[in-house]
C-alpha cells in the first residue's frame, strides 16, 4: 500500500509563473537560472506599445516642455501618470527634454552670411520714403556737405565677410551744377516721358482732325458750318460776319475749335521734340562718361 503511495509530481510551470520568475530575477539582478525565451522581451515591448498607442503623446510633449505646469493641474496629473506608468511615454519624455536642451545649446552657433547685405546708394535712393524728384531737388538745394571718410567697422563686431567699398572723394559742386546733376540724372526717363506724351498728343490731335466731317483740317479762321452748307463754296472767314446766315458768335466759335486743335498738335510736337533733345543729350553724356 505504502508502495502504492506516490507523491504527486509537481505541476508543470505555467507561462505566468515563468514571467513572474524572470521578472523577479531581473529585479534582483541575479542571473536567472532559467534563461528567458528570446521572444519574451519582444512580447513585453509589443504589449507596452499597444498600451501606449492609446496615450496622448502631445500631452507628454507639453509636459516635457513645462507648458502644463501652471494653468492645467488636471492635465499635469494625467501627464505625470503617463510618464510614471508607461515606459514608452517615459522614453518619449526624456527624448523631448533632450532635444529641447540640444536646441538651446546650439542656439549660439552662428553662420557667416552668404553675401554682403549692405545697402548701396542706389538701394538707399530707391528705398527712401518720398517722391524721388522732390528728394533730388531738396538735395540739390541743400548746402554741400563734406564727403565722409571711409567708414570703419564698429568695435566688437564680427568680421564682415567682404571688404567695404571705399568712398571716393569728389570735388564740391556749385549750386547750378548740383541742380543740373539732380535733373541730369533723370534726363533720360524725363525725355522718354516727354516723347511719349508728345506722340500721344500728336495722335489725339490727328484723330480729332480725322473725325471731322470734312476730313482734312481747315485753315485758321474758317467756319466749318458755313463751308458745309449747301451751295456754299470756300468762303473766306473774313466774310462770315457779313453773311446773313451766320452771326459773329458762330464764326468765332468755329474758328476757336480749329485753333485749339492746331494748338494741341503744335504743343505735342514741341513736347516730343524737347523729349528727343533730352534723350539725345543724356545719351551723349553717357557716351562721354564711358
Amino acid at each position: 500500500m505504502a508502495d502504492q503511495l506516490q507523491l504527486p509530481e509537481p505541476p508543470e510551470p505555467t507561462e505566468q509563473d515563468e514571467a513572474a520568475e524572470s521578472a523577479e530575477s531581473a529585479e534582483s539582478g541575479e542571473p536567472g537560472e532559467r534563461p528567458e525565451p528570446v521572444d519574451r522581451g519582444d512580447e513585453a515591448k509589443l504589449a507596452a506599445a499597444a498600451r501606449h498607442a492609446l496615450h496622448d503623446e502631445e500631452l507628454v510633449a507639453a509636459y516635457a516642455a513645462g507648458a502644463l505646469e501652471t494653468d492645467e493641474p488636471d492635465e499635469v496629473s494625467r501627464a505625470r501618470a503617463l510618464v510614471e506608468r508607461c515606459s514608452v511615454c517615459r522614453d518619449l519624455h526624456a527624448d523631448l527634454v533632450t532635444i529641447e536642451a540640444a536646441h538651446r545649446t546650439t542656439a549660439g552657433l552662428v553662420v557667416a552670411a552668404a553675401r554682403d547685405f549692405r545697402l548701396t546708394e542706389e538701394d538707399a535712393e530707391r528705398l527712401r520714403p518720398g517722391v524721388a524728384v522732390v528728394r533730388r531737388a531738396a538735395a540739390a538745394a541743400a548746402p554741400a556737405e563734406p564727403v565722409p571718410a571711409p567708414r570703419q567697422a564698429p568695435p566688437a563686431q564680427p568680421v564682415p565677410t567682404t571688404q567695404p567699398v571705399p568712398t571716393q572723394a569728389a570735388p564740391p559742386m556749385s549750386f547750378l551744377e548740383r541742380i543740373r546733376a539732380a535733373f541730369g540724372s533723370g534726363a533720360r526717363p524725363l525725355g522718354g516721358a516727354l516723347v511719349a506724351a508728345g506722340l500721344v498728343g500728336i495722335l489725339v490731335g490727328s484723330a480729332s482732325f480725322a473725325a471731322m466731317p470734312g476730313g482734312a483740317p481747315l485753315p485758321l479762321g474758317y467756319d466749318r458750318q458755313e463751308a458745309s452748307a449747301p451751295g456754299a463754296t470756300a468762303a473766306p472767314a473774313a466774310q462770315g460776319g457779313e453773311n446773313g446766315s451766320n452771326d459773329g458768335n458762330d464764326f468765332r466759335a468755329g474758328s476757336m475749335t480749329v485753333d485749339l486743335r492746331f494748338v494741341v498738335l503744335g504743343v505735342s510736337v514741341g513736347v516730343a521734340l524737347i523729349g528727343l533733345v533730352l534723350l539725345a543729350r543724356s545719351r551723349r553724356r553717357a557716351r562721354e562718361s564711358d
Partner: protein
Amino acid sequence: MLDSPGFTIAVRRMPPSVEDLRSTTVADDPIQRRDLVLLERAREGELDAFNDLVVCYQDMLYALVVRMVPDRDQASDAVQEAFFNAYRNLESFRGGSVKSWLSRIAINAAMDTQRFRKRRPAEPYPELEDETWQPPADASADPVTASLMAERHRALNAALARITDDQRTAIVLYDIEGYDYAEIAGLTGVSIGTVKSRIHRGRLALRGLLLDRMDLFRG
C-alpha cells in the same frame, strides 16, 4: 520610478544660455547705445551708419533666417529684404532694442518667404550639411566638444528642415531665439494655444526623425 536616473522632471524653461534676443531696457549696455547712435544717424540720412548696423547684425540675422528657411538662397533674399524693410521703416522704430527690432523684421521676412514657398511648392528644403556653422567667438571649447556640438547641430538642422514651416518657425523662435509663447503668437498671428501645439507637435516630429540618433544628444 520617479527617482530613476533616466527620468527627468520637466522644469520651467530657462532663458537661452547664450544671449537673449528680446528687448532689453538696459541703457548702460554699450552695444545697445552704439546701435541707437547708429540708428539715429541712419535716420538723418547717413547710409554708412545704417550699413554699420548691417555689418553688426547680418550674420546673426542670417543664422536666424536660415533656420526658418533652410534654403540658403531664399534665406539670403529674405535677409536682404529685411534690411530693405528696416531702412524703409527707420522712422517706425520706437525705441528699445535695435537687435530685437531687426530680428522681428527678419522673422517677418522669413515668414513671407515661407508663405511664398507654400503658394509655389517646389522642392523640399536641402539639408544644411555644411561646416560653416561656428561656435561663438568667445567659446573656448575643446575640439571634441566643438565637433560634437557641430554634429548635433547638423543632425538637428537636417531634422528641422523636414518638419512643417509652422512647426519649424515656432520651435526656432521658442527654443533658439528665446521668445515666449505670447510673443510668438504676436509674431505669427495665431493664438497661444496654436503656438504651443505647433511646438509640441514639432518636437514630436523631430523626435521621430532623430530616433536613430538620440545617442548623439545624450550624455
